[in-house]
């Protein structure tokens, strides 16, 4: 067990390192001269040199890479070129927005997916199952940003119940919540379509197991079996799949923030791209990648720890 954990952990660290190398390579080596990219072709030589010194570009690549990693570990993510302030500050200002959106999105996703998946499994081979599966196929095919626009057309333009975007700040919590409703629903509907399928499959698998049949034979009500026995056992693979959805949650949050103009990290990334602010983009991409890799790692561990059969897989 310990050996297994060790192997996995080493693998995790290696993946993180590789990811950091890829990010660093793309953002620092590919452009040839990052200072030139940031300042533009016709910047004066003086300005370019000044920036090169400031960014430490005259040192060998390995040194720059190591410096970057070491500073990042201590919380120094460099300075945003266009904003003129430390990147970490920019991130701290906006992270609550992104986290709020991601968390509420995931919660709603799980609720909807569980409801639909379990119901589908319970109604296996009947209309309910088919209907839910169709919805799920549709949900996978519908782009989250399009769904957002459709929701805006209905709730913001026609009905005028909710704003089409923007975020008025946490000072007035009611207005703030109103601004988060559509983004959360958009995020959740699409993700839950994927998750519902998985929930249904694993619920079906569990339902076929012996002890469930025993419970049925013992006369427990269907509902009780479903919620008290099937669900908890089906939950294991579901939780792991939820973890695997992290990459999708990350992407989804970035997209939704831009659709609804929420002042979070997703919008920051795009502002930075427009400004050719390489340090900020680099820090943000690395951060998101680290989150995805870490989530995958934790899920991998959970999955294997809970189901010992899988440990022997490799």
């Amino acid at each position, binding site marked *: 067990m310990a050996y297994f954990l060790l192997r996995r952990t080493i693998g995790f660290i290696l993946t993180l390192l590789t990811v950091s190398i890829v990010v660093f390579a793309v953002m620092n080596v590919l452009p040839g001269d990052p200072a030139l990219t940031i300042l533009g072709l016709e910047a004066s030589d003086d300005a370019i040199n000044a920036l090169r010194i400031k960014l430490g570009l005259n040192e060998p690549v390995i040194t720059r890479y190591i410096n970057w990693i070491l500073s990042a570990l201590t919380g120094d993510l460099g300075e945003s070129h266009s904003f003129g302030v430390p990147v970490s500050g920019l991130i701290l200002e906006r992270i609550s927005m992104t986290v709020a959106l991601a968390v509420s999105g995931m919660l709603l996703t799980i609720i909807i997916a569980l409801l639909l998946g379990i119901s589908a499994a319970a109604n296996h081979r009947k209309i309910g199952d088919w209907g839910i599966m169709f919805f799920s196929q549709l949900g996978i095919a519908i782009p989250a940003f399009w769904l957002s626009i459709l929701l805006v057309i209905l709730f913001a333009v026609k009905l005028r119940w909710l*704003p089409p975007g923007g975020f008025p700040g946490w000072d007035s919590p009611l207005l703030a919540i109103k601004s988060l*409703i559509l983004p959360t629903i958009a995020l959740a509907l699409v993700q839950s379509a994927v998750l519902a399928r998985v929930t249904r499959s694993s619920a079906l698998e569990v339902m076929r197991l012996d002890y469930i049949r025993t419970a049925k034979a013992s006369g427990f009500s269907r509902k009780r079996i479903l919620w008290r026995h099937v669900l908890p056992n089906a939950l294991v693979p579901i939780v792991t799949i939820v973890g695997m959805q992290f990459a999708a949650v990350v992407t989804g949050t970035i997209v939704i923030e831009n659709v609804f103009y929420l*002042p979070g990290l997703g919008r*920051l990334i795009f502002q930075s791209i427009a400004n050719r602010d390489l340090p900020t983009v680099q820090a943000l991409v690395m951060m998101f990648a680290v989150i995805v890799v870490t989530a995958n790692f934790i899920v991998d561990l959970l999955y294997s720890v809970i189901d010992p059969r899988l440990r022997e897989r490799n």
Partner: protein
Amino acid sequence: MKLKKMHSSFWGVSLGVLGVFLTPNISVAKSNIVIGLQQEPTSLDPTSDATASIDGMLSHNVYESLTTVSEAGEVLPALANSWTISEDKLTYRFNLASGVKYHDGTDFDSADVVFSFERAMAEDSVNPTKKIFKVIESVTAIDSQTIEIKLKKQNAFFLFNMAKGDASIVAKETAEDNNTTPIGTGPFKFSSWKRGDRLILVKNENHREASDVSLEKVEFRFISDAAAASAAMLSEEIDAFPGFPAPEMLPQFQADPRFRVNIGSTEGEVILAMNNAKAPFNDIRVRRAVSHAIDRNEIIDGAMYGKAVPIGSFYPPHGSAYVDLTGVYPHDTEKAKKLFEEAGVAGTEMTLRLPPFPYAMRSGEIIQAQLAEAGINAKVEQVEWGFWISEVYKKKAYDMTIIAHTSPNDMGNFARGPKYFYGYDDPKFSDLWGRIKTEADPSKRNAMLQEGQKYLTDQAVHGFLFQLPLLGIFKNEVKGYWSSAPVLFHPLKGVSLN
């Protein structure tokens, strides 16, 4: 029992949700205003950067000048309480307001005025409107409260020009850092600037007119994206957007009882600028061909949804000297094609660099198609504002661009010579402008202004598109905002929230 539980919790949640929708929006404080702005500047010093929004936010709010201007365009006292003008109209004596302090506590007096003027007039000055100071022969401090300015020649615009943000009176101690931390004498103090997000001003309690100022805090939010601007208004994130970038959204706001829509005028001529110093635009045939290729009405219809007035030269239609020259180059694709062929540029590629404003990007898309019809392959390149200023404006690295010139009385741009980003150099026009500047008789001046318009159009220096309207959307509680923009600044002194 599980079912019942689910039912009651279901209702509970639904009522809660309904409650959220139906709750009226309670504003937090009635003296803080949030204003949306399309254009975020890269510096906060109007005396060294040409970006209009610096004046829009800070001139006459944070900084003050000797004079100011009312919404009707009338010159009023500001840092100068009163003034006398000599018989020959060459000597102006200003009496300065007393007891005025800068935001950092230092005193304001005539020495600051002398410093500001000398700084603007210096050889190496980077003042964007240096030319308004060219007519000045000397600036002398008679005593700490009196300034005497002698002019070389009579200048009808002098007092008006001194109200500009470029003529802000800055303090010697703090002038260098004004681009990041503006220090002025105005009714509002600079509080903070979060780049890419917002700029905050707070009331200056020590201002001589502080009792008239009802706003405690002013927050400018920078939003150039049309859809983001709409969303911000509708979610009540901001209270006012005086230069709203999306004319197609106006009907939605007009139908919404929370807001009022204001359509006013600006001094902004929107032009399709051609780099006159660079081939092929140094060839008048090419410039005329472009003028024929574009269809103003289509552009106004498609980019501004009809909410703009076409212009045929570089002068606003609501101005007293306006002459309608929109018919000089009627939309004629065939003629354009012929002229392009004559000049030997048919089928070539030209770049159109656009700043990130909807009026420019949308016009650009339409002009690209119109040029394509006339046989020119125009490549559209959208750039950020900072990039536009440094590349297009300062380095003249462009073929064509689209921009609005929002300063009043700025036909003089064409007399600024080849170093100005137009790349236009015509002594005939410079001479005419010299005469206009010194002509005191308004009717004679207007006649010359008309001559100037005709000349510029004849030379087809640029494609003259339309006058930029001031599309403002305000929450009903916002009162006192100017409905037109006769100058670049928007005094917030008179603005209040019900």
